[in-house]
């Protein structure tokens, strides 16, 4: 009833009855007074809020993103062109069996290409594995492949280079025809983000770093370099997630 009274939602009779009760019930009247004070404190506290002043940084980021809608239009045009190619392909491979066979052959070719590309190379010198504080499953003196991701709409490759003094350089290549969000998250006791940048500084990306995550909004084909400082000497987990339209499309954990 107190709530309804404060909101002014009591009928005249109810209000009269409540006020009669207030006159005799000191506990209730003290509570009402406190609640009014809380209301007053909240209102006065809200009145002195800190100024936002974020027009410039927001617009700088927006300009950096470029005219995203023009790009979307171009991508749609490309998709229309791709549709034309599909029609041609359908003429060459008219039955579903042919499509399956074609898909299998393409998969084998891509698989062989990936394997040959990441086949362990000879050490180039200049870096001792003794300096590395973390290890990956596939060791390579020039860079450790940890995660190739091949989704229909997003291709990603994450490689890590251990550096002296517990630093780890992550090289991240992302290719997506639509906006996607790549998130690397970790425990704050495991890593610290020291720097991150986009190679070539193209306008169609957004990079954000928090104390326990790095988020990259990607469109097109881009490369990013992230420098992490490892805070422990044991293997630590790094979570890699890919979102599209706010939906999680991929998630995996790697140990560094």
């Amino acid at each position, binding site marked *: 009833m107190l709530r309804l009274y404060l909101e002014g939602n009591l009928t005249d009779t109810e209000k009269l009855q409540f006020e009669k009760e207030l006159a005799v019930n000191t506990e209730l009247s003290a509570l009402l007074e406190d609640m009014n004070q809380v209301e007053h*404190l*909240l209102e006065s506290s809200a009145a002195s809020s800190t100024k*936002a002043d*974020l027009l410039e940084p927001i617009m700088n980021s927006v*300009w950096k993103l470029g005219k995203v*809608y023009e790009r*979307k239009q171009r991508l749609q045009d490309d998709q229309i062109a791709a549709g034309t190619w599909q029609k041609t392909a359908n003429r060459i491979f008219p039955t579903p069996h042919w499509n399956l066979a074609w898909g299998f052959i393409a998969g084998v070719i891509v698989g062989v290409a990936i394997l040959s590309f990441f086949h362990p190379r000879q050490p180039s010198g200049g870096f001792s594995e003794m300096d590395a504080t973390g290890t990956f499953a596939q060791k390579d003196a020039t860079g450790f492949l940890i995660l190739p991701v091949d989704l229909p709409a997003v291709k990603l490759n994450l490689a890590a280079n251990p550096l002296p003094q517990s630093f780890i350089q992550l090289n991240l290549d992302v290719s997506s025809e639509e906006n996607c969000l790549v998130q690397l998250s970790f425990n704050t006791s495991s890593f610290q983000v020291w720097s991150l940048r986009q190679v070539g500084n193209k306008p169609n990306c957004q990079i954000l770093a928090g104390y326990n995550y790095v988020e990259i909004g990607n469109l097109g084909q881009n490369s990013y370099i992230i420098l992490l400082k490892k805070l422990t000497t044991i293997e630590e987990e790094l979570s890699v997630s890919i979102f599209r339209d706010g939906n999680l499309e991929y998630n995996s954990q790697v140990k560094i």
Partner: protein
Amino acid sequence: MVEIDDHSIIKKVLEGDTASFAEIVVRYQQIIFNLTYQMTGNEEDARDLTQEIFIRAYMNLDRIDPHYKFFSWLYRLGVNQTLDFIKRRKPLILTENLMAHDRYAENENGNLTEKKTYVRKAIQKLKPKYRLLIVMKYYSALSYDQMSLITGIPEKKVKSRLFEARQMLRTTLKSSMEIL
């Protein structure tokens, strides 16, 4: 001077007039910042979050339903982003950041009275579902109708939960801060 409505501005942005987005930022940056600041209790996090919210809004302008109020859509985006941020953040860091900021506020900014600082601290102690309603009502001046639309909670429930939140604030302020 007649103010152009939000959807007309969005239409211009979608047609390639990127600069028009500044009008949207000018209109809503304060209300979104108030949301992120009061929810996180940390000015730096709030600034980063507010920027992120506007950038996400810009990237998704073409998905807005013209029958839906742009402000409600933007605010809801802000709420989701902020709650997500709070979920990812460790409570310990929240407390440390808040304390650090309050020390700064008390020492450097004479405008903030002790009572207001206590109120902000008490708000931070509320669970996010209660804190959100307090922020929406007092720092964003939203109507019960808007609060219900944005949170998806029936208006009646919004009112009762808000009352519970004020009662919790009363208890905190009365017992630990002794300002009532």
